Protein backbone atom coordinates (compact mmCIF):
# COMPACT_ATOMS: atom_id res chain seq x y z
CA UNK A 1 0.00 0.00 0.00
CA UNK A 2 2.78 2.43 1.01
CA UNK A 3 6.22 1.80 -0.33
CA UNK A 4 9.34 3.84 0.41
CA UNK A 5 12.42 2.97 -1.60
CA UNK A 6 15.98 4.19 -0.99
CA UNK A 7 14.74 7.55 0.19
CA UNK A 8 17.34 10.27 0.74
CA UNK A 9 16.22 13.59 2.23
CA UNK A 10 17.35 16.36 4.54
CA UNK A 11 17.36 20.07 5.34
CA UNK A 12 19.76 22.45 3.63
CA UNK A 13 23.24 20.97 3.61
CA UNK A 14 22.35 18.35 6.21
CA UNK A 15 21.40 14.90 4.97
CA UNK A 16 19.07 13.30 7.49
CA UNK A 17 17.79 10.17 5.75
CA UNK A 18 20.19 7.78 4.04
CA UNK A 19 18.49 5.43 1.60
CA UNK A 20 15.57 4.45 3.79
CA UNK A 21 13.28 1.68 2.53
CA UNK A 22 10.01 0.71 4.10
CA UNK A 23 6.84 -1.11 3.09
CA UNK A 24 3.45 -1.20 4.72
CA UNK A 25 0.66 -3.47 3.59
CA UNK A 26 -3.02 -2.64 3.50
CA UNK A 27 -4.65 -2.81 6.94
CA UNK A 28 -1.33 -3.24 8.68
CA UNK A 29 -0.22 -1.22 11.69
CA UNK A 30 3.51 -0.59 11.63
CA UNK A 31 5.63 1.36 14.07
CA UNK A 32 8.63 3.48 13.29
CA UNK A 33 10.78 3.62 16.37
CA UNK A 34 14.14 5.07 17.17
CA UNK A 35 15.94 7.52 19.41
CA UNK A 36 15.68 11.29 19.26
CA UNK A 37 17.10 12.81 16.09
CA UNK A 38 17.08 9.56 14.18
CA UNK A 39 15.05 11.14 11.39
CA UNK A 40 11.59 9.77 12.16
CA UNK A 41 9.77 13.07 11.69
CA UNK A 42 11.88 13.83 8.64
CA UNK A 43 10.72 10.57 7.11
CA UNK A 44 7.10 11.50 7.83
CA UNK A 45 7.62 14.93 6.28
CA UNK A 46 9.24 13.38 3.21
CA UNK A 47 6.41 10.88 2.75
CA UNK A 48 3.88 13.71 2.95
CA UNK A 49 5.80 15.79 0.42
CA UNK A 50 6.54 18.54 2.92
CA UNK A 51 10.25 18.20 2.25
CA UNK A 52 11.72 17.15 -1.02
CA UNK A 53 13.12 13.66 -1.64
CA UNK A 54 16.64 14.01 -3.04
CA UNK A 55 16.60 10.51 -4.42
CA UNK A 56 14.60 7.34 -4.05
CA UNK A 57 10.85 7.09 -4.47
CA UNK A 58 7.60 6.96 -2.60
CA UNK A 59 4.79 4.85 -4.01
CA UNK A 60 1.19 4.78 -2.84
CA UNK A 61 -1.00 1.98 -4.17
CA UNK A 62 1.30 1.53 -7.14
CA UNK A 63 1.39 5.24 -8.01
CA UNK A 64 4.71 7.03 -7.74
CA UNK A 65 4.06 10.18 -5.72
CA UNK A 66 7.68 11.28 -5.33
CA UNK A 67 7.90 15.01 -5.86
CA UNK A 68 4.14 15.53 -5.62
CA UNK A 69 2.75 18.34 -3.52
CA UNK A 70 1.31 17.56 -0.10
CA UNK A 71 -2.26 18.21 -1.17
CA UNK A 72 -2.03 15.85 -4.10
CA UNK A 73 -0.48 13.15 -1.89
CA UNK A 74 -3.41 13.61 0.47
CA UNK A 75 -5.87 12.93 -2.29
CA UNK A 76 -4.17 9.49 -2.57
CA UNK A 77 -5.45 8.76 0.93
CA UNK A 78 -2.56 9.76 3.19
CA UNK A 79 -2.93 11.93 6.25
CA UNK A 80 -0.46 12.89 8.98
CA UNK A 81 -1.03 13.80 12.61
CA UNK A 82 2.00 16.02 13.08
CA UNK A 83 4.35 15.98 16.01
CA UNK A 84 3.38 18.52 18.65
CA UNK A 85 -0.27 18.45 17.49
CA UNK A 86 -0.11 21.86 15.74
CA UNK A 87 -3.69 22.78 16.50
CA UNK A 88 -4.92 26.11 15.07
CA UNK A 89 -5.28 27.73 18.47
CA UNK A 90 -7.55 30.67 17.58
CA UNK A 91 -9.91 28.42 15.60
CA UNK A 92 -12.85 26.64 17.22
CA UNK A 93 -12.79 22.85 17.42
CA UNK A 94 -15.25 22.69 14.59
CA UNK A 95 -13.19 25.05 12.43
CA UNK A 96 -10.09 22.96 13.10
CA UNK A 97 -12.00 19.94 11.88
CA UNK A 98 -13.21 21.90 8.87
CA UNK A 99 -9.61 22.62 7.95
CA UNK A 100 -9.00 18.90 7.99
CA UNK A 101 -11.76 18.37 5.46
CA UNK A 102 -10.29 20.71 2.87
CA UNK A 103 -9.22 17.82 0.63
CA UNK A 104 -12.51 15.99 1.03
CA UNK A 105 -13.92 15.67 -2.44
CA UNK A 106 -17.47 14.80 -1.35
CA UNK A 107 -18.15 18.37 -0.22
CA UNK A 108 -20.76 19.35 2.34
CA UNK A 109 -22.56 15.97 2.77
CA UNK A 110 -19.20 14.23 3.08
CA UNK A 111 -18.17 16.76 5.69
CA UNK A 112 -21.19 16.13 7.90
CA UNK A 113 -20.61 12.41 7.68
CA UNK A 114 -16.94 12.71 8.62
CA UNK A 115 -17.75 15.11 11.43
CA UNK A 116 -20.19 12.60 12.92
CA UNK A 117 -17.56 9.92 12.56
CA UNK A 118 -14.90 11.94 14.42
CA UNK A 119 -17.36 13.00 17.11
CA UNK A 120 -18.31 9.36 17.50
CA UNK A 121 -14.68 8.44 17.99
CA UNK A 122 -13.97 11.33 20.40
CA UNK A 123 -17.24 12.37 22.05
CA UNK A 124 -15.36 15.00 24.09
CA UNK A 125 -14.69 16.96 20.92
CA UNK A 126 -18.42 17.27 20.29
CA UNK A 127 -18.92 18.75 23.75
CA UNK A 128 -16.17 21.29 23.02
CA UNK A 129 -17.35 21.97 19.45
CA UNK A 130 -17.38 25.77 19.66
CA UNK A 131 -14.51 26.16 22.08
CA UNK A 132 -11.24 27.60 20.78
CA UNK A 133 -8.57 25.00 20.04
CA UNK A 134 -6.03 26.76 22.20
CA UNK A 135 -8.18 26.41 25.31
CA UNK A 136 -8.35 22.60 25.19
CA UNK A 137 -6.31 20.36 27.47
CA UNK A 138 -3.31 18.55 26.01
CA UNK A 139 -5.19 15.29 25.63
CA UNK A 140 -8.15 16.96 23.98
CA UNK A 141 -5.83 18.76 21.62
CA UNK A 142 -4.29 15.44 20.63
CA UNK A 143 -7.74 14.03 19.99
CA UNK A 144 -8.49 17.08 17.90
CA UNK A 145 -5.28 16.61 15.95
CA UNK A 146 -6.16 12.99 15.20
CA UNK A 147 -9.75 13.87 14.44
CA UNK A 148 -8.63 16.63 12.11
CA UNK A 149 -6.36 14.24 10.23
CA UNK A 150 -9.25 11.79 9.89
CA UNK A 151 -11.50 14.43 8.33
CA UNK A 152 -9.92 13.93 4.92
CA UNK A 153 -11.07 10.28 5.06
CA UNK A 154 -7.59 8.78 4.76
CA UNK A 155 -6.73 5.18 4.06
CA UNK A 156 -3.28 5.50 5.61
CA UNK A 157 -2.87 7.48 8.79
CA UNK A 158 0.59 8.57 9.89
CA UNK A 159 0.83 9.38 13.59
CA UNK A 160 3.93 11.26 14.75
CA UNK A 161 4.44 10.76 18.51
CA UNK A 162 0.77 11.15 19.45
CA UNK A 163 1.29 10.20 23.09
CA UNK A 164 4.09 12.58 23.90
CA UNK A 165 3.63 14.43 27.18
CA UNK A 166 0.18 13.03 27.96
CA UNK A 167 -1.11 11.63 31.24
CA UNK A 168 -1.36 7.80 31.39
CA UNK A 169 -5.13 7.92 31.55
CA UNK A 170 -5.36 9.99 28.40
CA UNK A 171 -2.83 7.76 26.66
CA UNK A 172 -5.11 4.81 27.30
CA UNK A 173 -8.10 6.70 25.97
CA UNK A 174 -6.31 7.58 22.75
CA UNK A 175 -4.85 4.09 22.40
CA UNK A 176 -8.37 2.76 22.54
CA UNK A 177 -9.42 5.09 19.75
CA UNK A 178 -6.44 4.04 17.67
CA UNK A 179 -7.40 0.43 18.15
CA UNK A 180 -10.89 1.16 16.87
CA UNK A 181 -9.36 2.74 13.76
CA UNK A 182 -7.25 -0.35 13.29
CA UNK A 183 -10.28 -2.60 13.57
CA UNK A 184 -12.06 -0.52 10.97
CA UNK A 185 -9.25 -1.41 8.56
CA UNK A 186 -7.25 1.81 8.51
CA UNK A 187 -3.58 1.35 7.67
CA UNK A 188 -1.39 2.88 10.36
CA UNK A 189 2.18 4.09 10.58
CA UNK A 190 3.01 5.10 14.12
CA UNK A 191 6.12 7.01 15.12
CA UNK A 192 6.93 6.39 18.76
CA UNK A 193 9.94 6.55 21.01
CA UNK A 194 8.52 4.44 23.79
CA UNK A 195 8.84 0.82 22.79
CA UNK A 196 6.11 -0.56 25.03
CA UNK A 197 3.41 1.64 23.55
CA UNK A 198 4.63 1.07 20.01
CA UNK A 199 4.80 -2.67 20.26
CA UNK A 200 1.40 -2.73 21.90
CA UNK A 201 -0.26 -1.17 18.88
CA UNK A 202 1.83 -2.22 15.93
CA UNK A 203 2.33 -5.72 14.63
CA UNK A 204 5.65 -4.83 13.07
CA UNK A 205 8.34 -2.27 13.88
CA UNK A 206 11.15 -0.62 11.99
CA UNK A 207 13.98 0.85 14.01
CA UNK A 208 15.48 4.01 12.57
CA UNK A 209 18.98 4.87 13.75
CA UNK A 210 20.89 7.86 12.37
CA UNK A 211 18.80 8.04 9.25
CA UNK A 212 18.90 4.36 8.29
CA UNK A 213 16.69 1.41 9.08
CA UNK A 214 18.80 -0.60 11.50
CA UNK A 215 16.33 -3.37 12.21
CA UNK A 216 12.95 -4.52 10.97
CA UNK A 217 11.06 -7.16 12.88
CA UNK A 218 7.65 -8.29 14.08
CA UNK A 219 6.55 -6.87 17.39
CA UNK A 220 6.48 -10.28 18.99
CA UNK A 221 10.09 -10.97 18.00
CA UNK A 222 11.17 -7.64 19.34
CA UNK A 223 9.35 -8.07 22.61
CA UNK A 224 11.24 -11.31 23.04
CA UNK A 225 14.65 -9.65 22.71
CA UNK A 226 16.73 -9.58 25.82
CA UNK A 227 18.40 -6.25 25.08
CA UNK A 228 15.08 -4.49 24.58
CA UNK A 229 15.78 -1.95 27.29
CA UNK A 230 18.82 -0.58 25.50
CA UNK A 231 17.86 -1.65 21.99
CA UNK A 232 18.67 1.73 20.43
CA UNK A 233 22.03 1.81 22.11
CA UNK A 234 23.07 -1.61 20.93
CA UNK A 235 21.85 -0.94 17.40
CA UNK A 236 23.73 2.33 17.32
CA UNK A 237 26.88 0.52 18.44
CA UNK A 238 26.44 -1.96 15.63
CA UNK A 239 25.86 0.77 13.06
CA UNK A 240 29.01 2.53 14.13
Amino acid at each position, binding site marked *: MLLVENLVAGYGAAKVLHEVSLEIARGEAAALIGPNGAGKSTLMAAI*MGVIEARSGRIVVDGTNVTGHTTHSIMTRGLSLV*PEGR*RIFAPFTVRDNLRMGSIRLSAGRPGFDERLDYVYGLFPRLKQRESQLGGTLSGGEQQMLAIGRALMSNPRILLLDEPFLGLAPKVIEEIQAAVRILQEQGLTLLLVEQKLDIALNIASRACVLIKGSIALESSSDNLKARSDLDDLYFSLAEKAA
Partner: protein
Amino acid sequence: MQDFFELIVSGFASGCLYSLMGLSFLLVMRPTGVVNFAVGQYAMLGGFAAVAVMTTILIPPIALPYVPGLLVVLALMALLGAAVEWIAVKPLVDRGAPPVASMLSLLGVLIVLLEVGARFGGTEALPTEPPFGFRRVEFGPFAGTPQSLFTIAVTLVIFAAVWLFFERTLWGRAFEAVSLDRRAAQLMGVNLRLVTVSAFASSAVVAGLVGVLISGTTGAYYQVGMALTVQGFTALVVGGVGRVDGALLGGVLLGLLEALVMRYLPVSSSMTLAVPLVVLLAFLVLRPHGLLANRGGH
Protein backbone atom coordinates in the same frame (compact mmCIF):
# COMPACT_ATOMS: atom_id res chain seq x y z
CA MET B 1 -19.34 72.88 13.75
CA GLN B 2 -20.14 72.74 10.04
CA ASP B 3 -16.41 72.41 9.41
CA PHE B 4 -16.16 69.50 11.79
CA PHE B 5 -18.81 67.45 10.04
CA GLU B 6 -17.35 68.21 6.63
CA LEU B 7 -13.98 67.10 7.94
CA ILE B 8 -15.37 63.84 9.26
CA VAL B 9 -16.51 62.94 5.76
CA SER B 10 -13.36 63.99 3.92
CA GLY B 11 -11.04 62.58 6.60
CA PHE B 12 -12.99 59.34 6.59
CA ALA B 13 -12.70 59.12 2.81
CA SER B 14 -8.93 59.69 2.84
CA GLY B 15 -8.67 57.24 5.72
CA CYS B 16 -10.48 54.62 3.66
CA LEU B 17 -7.75 54.82 1.05
CA TYR B 18 -5.11 54.29 3.76
CA SER B 19 -7.11 51.34 5.10
CA LEU B 20 -7.19 49.73 1.69
CA MET B 21 -3.45 50.20 1.35
CA GLY B 22 -3.04 48.61 4.77
CA LEU B 23 -5.20 45.73 3.63
CA SER B 24 -3.03 45.34 0.57
CA PHE B 25 0.02 44.95 2.80
CA LEU B 26 -1.86 42.60 5.09
CA LEU B 27 -3.09 40.22 2.41
CA VAL B 28 0.50 39.30 1.61
CA MET B 29 1.96 39.66 5.09
CA ARG B 30 -0.40 37.31 6.85
CA PRO B 31 0.00 34.14 4.84
CA THR B 32 3.61 34.65 3.70
CA GLY B 33 5.34 36.88 6.26
CA VAL B 34 6.64 39.04 3.42
CA VAL B 35 6.36 42.82 3.67
CA ASN B 36 5.91 44.15 0.18
CA PHE B 37 6.79 47.84 -0.03
CA ALA B 38 5.90 47.83 -3.71
CA VAL B 39 2.15 47.99 -2.97
CA GLY B 40 2.24 51.76 -3.34
CA GLN B 41 3.50 51.30 -6.88
CA TYR B 42 0.62 48.92 -7.58
CA ALA B 43 -1.69 51.81 -6.68
CA MET B 44 0.23 54.15 -8.96
CA LEU B 45 0.05 51.66 -11.85
CA GLY B 46 -3.62 50.98 -11.14
CA GLY B 47 -4.26 54.67 -11.59
CA PHE B 48 -2.42 54.84 -14.89
CA ALA B 49 -4.08 51.63 -16.04
CA ALA B 50 -7.44 53.27 -15.31
CA VAL B 51 -6.42 56.30 -17.38
CA ALA B 52 -5.30 53.95 -20.14
CA VAL B 53 -8.50 51.91 -20.38
CA MET B 54 -11.12 54.49 -19.36
CA THR B 55 -9.92 57.59 -21.21
CA THR B 56 -8.36 58.37 -24.54
CA ILE B 57 -5.32 60.04 -22.96
CA LEU B 58 -2.80 57.20 -22.91
CA ILE B 59 -4.27 54.70 -25.34
CA PRO B 60 -6.56 56.70 -27.65
CA PRO B 61 -8.61 53.86 -29.20
CA ILE B 62 -9.69 52.42 -25.82
CA ALA B 63 -12.21 54.24 -23.62
CA LEU B 64 -14.33 51.85 -21.59
CA PRO B 65 -17.13 52.97 -19.27
CA TYR B 66 -16.36 52.97 -15.54
CA VAL B 67 -17.50 49.51 -14.45
CA PRO B 68 -16.04 47.44 -17.28
CA GLY B 69 -12.94 49.63 -17.17
CA LEU B 70 -12.58 49.00 -13.46
CA LEU B 71 -12.92 45.25 -13.97
CA VAL B 72 -10.29 45.26 -16.68
CA VAL B 73 -7.88 47.23 -14.48
CA LEU B 74 -8.42 44.91 -11.52
CA ALA B 75 -7.88 41.86 -13.72
CA LEU B 76 -4.63 43.37 -14.97
CA MET B 77 -3.59 44.08 -11.40
CA ALA B 78 -4.26 40.47 -10.41
CA LEU B 79 -2.03 39.31 -13.24
CA LEU B 80 0.64 41.79 -12.21
CA GLY B 81 0.54 40.66 -8.58
CA ALA B 82 0.81 37.01 -9.55
CA ALA B 83 3.64 37.77 -11.96
CA VAL B 84 5.57 39.68 -9.31
CA GLU B 85 5.25 36.73 -6.95
CA TRP B 86 6.33 34.31 -9.63
CA ILE B 87 9.34 36.34 -10.72
CA ALA B 88 10.66 37.94 -7.57
CA VAL B 89 9.45 35.87 -4.61
CA LYS B 90 8.93 32.24 -5.57
CA PRO B 91 12.57 31.53 -6.50
CA LEU B 92 13.65 32.86 -3.11
CA VAL B 93 11.06 30.88 -1.16
CA ASP B 94 11.99 27.76 -3.12
CA ARG B 95 15.60 28.30 -2.11
CA GLY B 96 14.58 28.74 1.51
CA ALA B 97 15.87 32.32 1.71
CA PRO B 98 14.65 34.40 4.69
CA PRO B 99 11.68 36.81 4.22
CA VAL B 100 14.04 39.78 4.25
CA ALA B 101 15.49 38.55 0.93
CA SER B 102 11.99 38.70 -0.56
CA MET B 103 11.57 42.17 0.88
CA LEU B 104 14.78 43.36 -0.81
CA SER B 105 13.95 41.75 -4.10
CA LEU B 106 10.52 43.42 -3.95
CA LEU B 107 12.31 46.74 -3.47
CA GLY B 108 13.92 46.05 -6.83
CA VAL B 109 10.44 45.39 -8.21
CA LEU B 110 9.28 48.66 -6.64
CA ILE B 111 11.82 50.61 -8.64
CA VAL B 112 10.98 48.76 -11.84
CA LEU B 113 7.27 49.46 -11.38
CA LEU B 114 7.91 53.10 -10.48
CA GLU B 115 9.94 53.60 -13.62
CA VAL B 116 7.45 51.74 -15.79
CA GLY B 117 4.74 54.04 -14.44
CA ALA B 118 6.78 57.17 -14.99
CA ARG B 119 7.71 56.18 -18.54
CA PHE B 120 4.28 54.93 -19.53
CA GLY B 121 2.14 57.50 -17.76
CA GLY B 122 4.56 60.40 -17.69
CA THR B 123 5.28 62.72 -14.78
CA GLU B 124 2.11 64.75 -15.00
CA ALA B 125 -1.12 63.93 -13.14
CA LEU B 126 -3.64 62.32 -15.51
CA PRO B 127 -7.36 62.10 -14.78
CA THR B 128 -10.15 59.60 -15.16
CA GLU B 129 -13.73 60.72 -15.12
CA PRO B 130 -15.00 60.12 -11.57
CA PRO B 131 -18.30 58.25 -11.71
CA PHE B 132 -20.18 60.65 -9.44
CA GLY B 133 -18.51 64.05 -9.57
CA PHE B 134 -17.74 66.65 -6.93
CA ARG B 135 -20.85 68.66 -6.25
CA ARG B 136 -21.69 69.22 -2.61
CA VAL B 137 -24.13 66.76 -1.02
CA GLU B 138 -25.49 67.28 2.47
CA PHE B 139 -27.10 64.77 4.80
CA GLY B 140 -27.93 66.10 8.21
CA PRO B 141 -24.94 67.98 9.53
CA PHE B 142 -22.56 66.05 7.27
CA ALA B 143 -21.44 67.24 3.89
CA GLY B 144 -19.22 65.68 1.29
CA THR B 145 -19.01 64.88 -2.38
CA PRO B 146 -20.59 61.90 -4.12
CA GLN B 147 -17.06 60.80 -4.91
CA SER B 148 -16.00 60.71 -1.26
CA LEU B 149 -19.14 58.74 -0.37
CA PHE B 150 -18.37 56.36 -3.22
CA THR B 151 -14.85 55.82 -1.85
CA ILE B 152 -16.23 55.13 1.63
CA ALA B 153 -18.88 52.74 0.33
CA VAL B 154 -16.43 50.80 -1.85
CA THR B 155 -14.01 50.48 1.06
CA LEU B 156 -16.64 49.22 3.47
CA VAL B 157 -17.87 46.69 0.93
CA ILE B 158 -14.33 45.44 0.32
CA PHE B 159 -13.61 45.09 4.00
CA ALA B 160 -16.90 43.36 4.66
CA ALA B 161 -16.21 40.94 1.83
CA VAL B 162 -12.67 40.24 2.99
CA TRP B 163 -13.82 39.78 6.56
CA LEU B 164 -16.57 37.40 5.53
CA PHE B 165 -14.15 35.50 3.35
CA PHE B 166 -11.63 35.01 6.14
CA GLU B 167 -14.16 34.26 8.86
CA ARG B 168 -16.85 32.36 7.06
CA THR B 169 -15.52 30.47 4.07
CA LEU B 170 -13.44 27.33 4.16
CA TRP B 171 -10.82 28.84 1.85
CA GLY B 172 -10.69 32.01 3.91
CA ARG B 173 -10.09 29.91 6.98
CA ALA B 174 -7.38 28.13 5.03
CA PHE B 175 -5.66 31.49 4.44
CA GLU B 176 -5.85 32.14 8.17
CA ALA B 177 -4.53 28.66 8.88
CA VAL B 178 -1.56 29.29 6.64
CA SER B 179 -0.74 32.48 8.49
CA LEU B 180 -1.07 30.71 11.84
CA ASP B 181 0.98 27.63 11.01
CA ARG B 182 2.18 27.16 7.50
CA ARG B 183 3.29 23.57 7.99
CA ALA B 184 0.10 22.46 9.71
CA ALA B 185 -1.99 24.07 6.99
CA GLN B 186 0.05 22.25 4.39
CA LEU B 187 -0.67 18.98 6.18
CA MET B 188 -4.39 19.75 6.01
CA GLY B 189 -3.98 19.70 2.26
CA VAL B 190 -4.00 23.45 1.76
CA ASN B 191 -2.35 24.28 -1.57
CA LEU B 192 0.35 26.70 -0.44
CA ARG B 193 1.20 27.83 -3.97
CA LEU B 194 -2.40 28.74 -4.58
CA VAL B 195 -2.61 30.65 -1.30
CA THR B 196 0.62 32.54 -1.96
CA VAL B 197 -0.28 33.45 -5.52
CA SER B 198 -3.78 34.54 -4.60
CA ALA B 199 -2.39 36.56 -1.72
CA PHE B 200 -0.08 38.49 -4.01
CA ALA B 201 -2.76 38.84 -6.68
CA SER B 202 -5.46 40.07 -4.30
CA SER B 203 -3.00 42.46 -2.67
CA ALA B 204 -2.30 44.00 -6.06
CA VAL B 205 -6.02 44.16 -6.83
CA VAL B 206 -6.80 46.06 -3.63
CA ALA B 207 -3.92 48.50 -4.13
CA GLY B 208 -4.89 48.89 -7.78
CA LEU B 209 -8.41 49.78 -6.69
CA VAL B 210 -6.95 52.57 -4.57
CA GLY B 211 -5.16 53.80 -7.66
CA VAL B 212 -8.40 53.79 -9.67
CA LEU B 213 -10.22 55.70 -6.92
CA ILE B 214 -7.45 58.30 -6.73
CA SER B 215 -7.27 58.67 -10.50
CA GLY B 216 -10.83 59.97 -10.30
CA THR B 217 -10.13 62.51 -7.58
CA THR B 218 -6.62 63.90 -7.90
CA GLY B 219 -5.45 62.08 -11.00
CA ALA B 220 -3.05 59.22 -11.59
CA TYR B 221 0.39 60.51 -10.65
CA TYR B 222 3.71 58.71 -10.77
CA GLN B 223 4.75 59.81 -7.31
CA VAL B 224 1.73 58.72 -5.25
CA GLY B 225 3.27 55.33 -4.44
CA MET B 226 5.63 56.13 -1.61
CA ALA B 227 3.18 58.30 0.32
CA LEU B 228 0.51 55.60 0.05
CA THR B 229 3.00 52.97 1.17
CA VAL B 230 3.79 54.90 4.32
CA GLN B 231 0.14 55.75 4.96
CA GLY B 232 -0.96 52.15 4.45
CA PHE B 233 1.72 50.67 6.64
CA THR B 234 0.94 53.25 9.31
CA ALA B 235 -2.73 52.29 9.18
CA LEU B 236 -1.65 48.72 9.82
CA VAL B 237 0.69 49.58 12.66
CA VAL B 238 -1.92 51.79 14.32
CA GLY B 239 -4.76 49.31 14.03
CA GLY B 240 -2.79 46.23 14.96
CA VAL B 241 -0.53 44.36 12.60
CA GLY B 242 -2.10 41.20 11.30
CA ARG B 243 -5.77 42.07 11.63
CA VAL B 244 -8.21 42.94 8.88
CA ASP B 245 -10.37 45.05 11.19
CA GLY B 246 -7.19 46.68 12.49
CA ALA B 247 -6.31 47.94 9.03
CA LEU B 248 -9.74 49.53 8.66
CA LEU B 249 -9.65 51.10 12.10
CA GLY B 250 -6.07 52.31 11.75
CA GLY B 251 -6.60 53.84 8.33
CA VAL B 252 -9.76 55.68 9.26
CA LEU B 253 -8.24 56.97 12.50
CA LEU B 254 -5.21 58.18 10.60
CA GLY B 255 -7.34 59.94 7.98
CA LEU B 256 -9.44 61.66 10.62
CA LEU B 257 -6.40 62.59 12.68
CA GLU B 258 -4.71 64.14 9.63
CA ALA B 259 -7.78 66.21 8.81
CA LEU B 260 -8.36 67.36 12.38
CA VAL B 261 -4.71 68.20 13.04
CA MET B 262 -4.62 70.14 9.81
CA ARG B 263 -7.74 72.08 10.60
CA TYR B 264 -7.53 72.73 14.32
CA LEU B 265 -3.91 72.62 15.42
CA PRO B 266 -1.69 75.61 14.79
CA VAL B 267 0.93 73.72 12.77
CA SER B 268 2.27 74.67 9.36
CA SER B 269 0.03 73.00 6.82
CA SER B 270 2.94 71.41 5.00
CA MET B 271 3.48 69.40 8.16
CA THR B 272 0.25 67.42 7.71
CA LEU B 273 2.30 64.96 5.71
CA ALA B 274 4.36 64.51 8.83
CA VAL B 275 1.30 63.25 10.73
CA PRO B 276 1.41 59.67 9.42
CA LEU B 277 5.20 59.61 9.75
CA VAL B 278 5.15 60.76 13.36
CA VAL B 279 2.25 58.44 14.19
CA LEU B 280 4.12 55.57 12.56
CA LEU B 281 7.30 56.24 14.52
CA ALA B 282 5.42 56.73 17.77
CA PHE B 283 3.54 53.46 17.39
CA LEU B 284 6.60 51.50 16.32
CA VAL B 285 8.50 52.68 19.35
CA LEU B 286 5.76 52.80 21.97
CA ARG B 287 3.10 50.34 20.93
CA PRO B 288 4.37 48.10 18.14
CA HIS B 289 1.34 45.83 18.33
CA GLY B 290 -1.12 48.58 17.56
CA LEU B 291 -4.48 49.33 19.13
CA LEU B 292 -6.06 45.91 18.63
CA ALA B 293 -4.25 42.92 20.04
CA ASN B 294 -2.78 40.46 17.60
CA ARG B 295 -4.32 37.05 17.39
CA GLY B 296 -1.20 35.08 16.65
CA GLY B 297 0.38 34.56 13.28
CA HIS B 298 3.35 36.50 12.14
